[in-house]
């Protein structure tokens, strides 16, 4: 704690930047766990809440204010909905059956007004903070193009870290109360803990109230097995982040910033490396967050399920950033596709177009809504909107072509379960994902198109020189270390894909299972310390998804 004491004594506020921050790993996590273990059972929940708010404060002071406003407002909206629902039940109980629909409708409208305010407050804040600059910039562009000179001032707001994540989590709570999936929480501290729990507040996973609120409030005791698994997962996540993602960071940034001087092959390599970096960074941070939670006996929802084994883009998005995908599915896709007008459309279209293409019209409109929101959620820029539309088109095409692919496979006698057929599908999906990530990472949409075009017009690796590697802060040894680590992670993924759990395997020996597990931890920790990209020559890399 001397680091904290020193900085407080010298009038400086200590600052954390991420889970992989040196201070966080060496001081904060062990202190947090030790105090959690020592804390009396009844006080653990309050300790978790205080620790979560302290973490948010050390990351970004403004975040605490947004979290407090979100918590207090959602608590109030929840109680209001609860009151309206109780009034509706009482009213329905004394109403004749024929009039029930009208009574119900009256109360549903009132509840929808409450929901509208909750959405306006949360999405409105997000829109103002994240998108005002984007809108004003585009208005200025239009003014300039039409010959005007009176440009508007582009505002630059300080966007609190994690706001895109905890806003969706808060909205899911109030929407679930409205839908009757969960009861409104009458304990503001429980709701506060659900929204602020620190292992998930920066980058998710975006939990549902029913998944984690009670678990957190009941704050289980630490047990040996969950502690061991948790520590293993934290170190595994840190290896992904520090050994691979952070090592590639400077080189990837150089390729995307200086692409104009590079050939297509190097740009393609940059897109592949960026995809690896993003996956290792995001899933690594998830492993750390889920690992910390597991230590204290909390099970957060998984956010990744080996996405690069997906055979289609649609499947990829069911396995990548799962909690965001399910959020969009439950609160946008199904409500849009099963709205009254869409249901009528589906019924009539099915009669004319059949079972496959009939529901596709309503499905496409809902899918479009999901992907425009997905693109905008990632950021306010044309390349993010393009990223969303790119995946919308790919998923739509995939759906349109299903009957044709089935027919061709039947005619050519191709078995879709054949290993090489599935391998080709996986490789195709990976290629499409990498192209999407190129546009996602590009510094603007036009730069993305230039980079993509260069892959076809100037494909060579002549600019991939030793000088470029030096400027990118990387050498051949770095590639070897990252490559070997990736192979290790890939091997674990293959086993998991075959339903062989590596962690379960370690518990098999009747005697010495714990020794085996801690030996694995020791080896992984040594590997991390020796091969981690930290210290001299490496800058700490902030979790990439926290910026969204």
């Amino acid at each position, binding site marked *: 704690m001397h680091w904290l004491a020193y900085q407080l004594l010298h009038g400086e506020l200590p600052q954390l930047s991420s889970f992989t921050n040196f201070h966080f790993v060496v001081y904060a996590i062990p202190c947090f766990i030790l105090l959690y273990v020592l804390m009396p059972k009844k006080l653990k929940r309050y300790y978790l809440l205080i620790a979560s708010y302290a973490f948010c404060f050390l990351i970004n002071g403004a975040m605490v204010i947004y979290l407090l406003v979100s918590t207090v407002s959602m608590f109030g909206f929840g109680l209001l909905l609860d009151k309206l629902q109780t009034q509706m039940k009482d009213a329905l109980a004394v109403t004749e059956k024929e009039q029930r629909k009208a009574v119900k409708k009256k109360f549903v409208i009132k509840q929808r007004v409450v929901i509208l305010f909750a959405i306006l407050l949360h999405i409105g804040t997000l829109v103002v903070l994240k998108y005002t600059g984007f809108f004003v910039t585009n208005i200025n562009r239009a003014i300039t193009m039409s010959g005007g000179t009176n440009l508007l001032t582009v505002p630059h707001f300080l966007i609190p870290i994690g706001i895109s994540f905890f806003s969706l989590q808060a909205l899911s709570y109030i929407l679930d109360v409205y839908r*009757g999936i969960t009861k409104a929480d009458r304990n503001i501290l429980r709701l506060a803990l659900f929204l602020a729990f620190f292992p998930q507040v920066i980058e998710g996973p975006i939990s549902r109230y029913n998944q984690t609120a009670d678990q957190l409030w009941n704050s289980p005791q630490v047990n040996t097995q969950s502690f061991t698994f948790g520590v293993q997962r934290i170190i595994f996540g840190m290896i992904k982040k520090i050994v691979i993602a952070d090592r590639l960071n400077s080189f990837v940034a150089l390729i995307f910033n200086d692409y104009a001087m590079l050939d297509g092959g190097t740009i393609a390599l940059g897109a592949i490396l960026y995809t690896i970096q993003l996956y290792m960074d995001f899933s690594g941070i998830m492993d750390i967050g889920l690992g910390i939670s597991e230590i204290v006996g909390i099970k957060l929802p998984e956010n990744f399920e080996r996405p690069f084994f997906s055979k289609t883009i649609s499947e990829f998005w069911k396995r990548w950033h799962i909690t965001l995908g399910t959020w969009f599915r439950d609160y946008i896709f*199904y409500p849009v596709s099963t709205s009254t007008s869409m249901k009528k459309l*589906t019924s009539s279209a099915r009669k004319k177009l059949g079972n496959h293409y009939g*529901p596709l019209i309503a*499905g496409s409109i809902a899918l479009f809504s999901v992907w425009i929101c997905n693109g905008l959620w990632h950021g306010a820029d044309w390349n993010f909107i393009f990223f969303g539309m790119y995946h919308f088109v790919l998923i739509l095409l995939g759906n349109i072509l299903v009957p044709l692919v089935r027919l061709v496979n039947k005619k050519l006698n191709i078995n879709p379960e054949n290993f090489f057929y599935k391998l080709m599908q996986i490789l195709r999906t990976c290629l499409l994902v990498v192209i999407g990530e190129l546009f996602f990472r590009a510094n603007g949409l036009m730069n993305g198109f230039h980079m993509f075009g260069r892959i076809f017009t100037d494909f060579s690796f002549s600019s991939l020189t030793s000088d470029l590697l030096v400027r990118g802060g990387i050498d051949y040894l770095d590639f070897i270390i990252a490559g070997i680590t990736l192979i290790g992670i890939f091997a674990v993924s293959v086993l998991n894909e075959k339903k062989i759990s590596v962690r379960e395997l370690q518990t098999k020996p009747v005697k010495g299972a714990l020794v085996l597990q801690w030996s694995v931890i020791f080896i992984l920790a040594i590997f991390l310390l020796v091969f981690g990209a930290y210290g001299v020559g490496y800058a700490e890399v902030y979790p990439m998804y926290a910026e969204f």
Partner: protein
Amino acid sequence: MDKLLEILQDINPDIDYTTCEDLIDGHRLESLSIISLIAELEDAFDITIPAAEIIPANFNSAKAMMAMIERLQED
């Protein structure tokens, strides 16, 4: 139940709905089939299926769907 099985057979005839219990979790019914199914169930059983009911537990088997339909008919 027969009416429900008829609707399901019409949407995807390749599934044995009398025994299958993982229609959603096993990815046997995709989102497009669910969209069709909801529209058809509402017409056939004179019910409204709110978005909150569109969860795997209500669509994993014909039995679960029937239970949901009966519950919504009582509302």
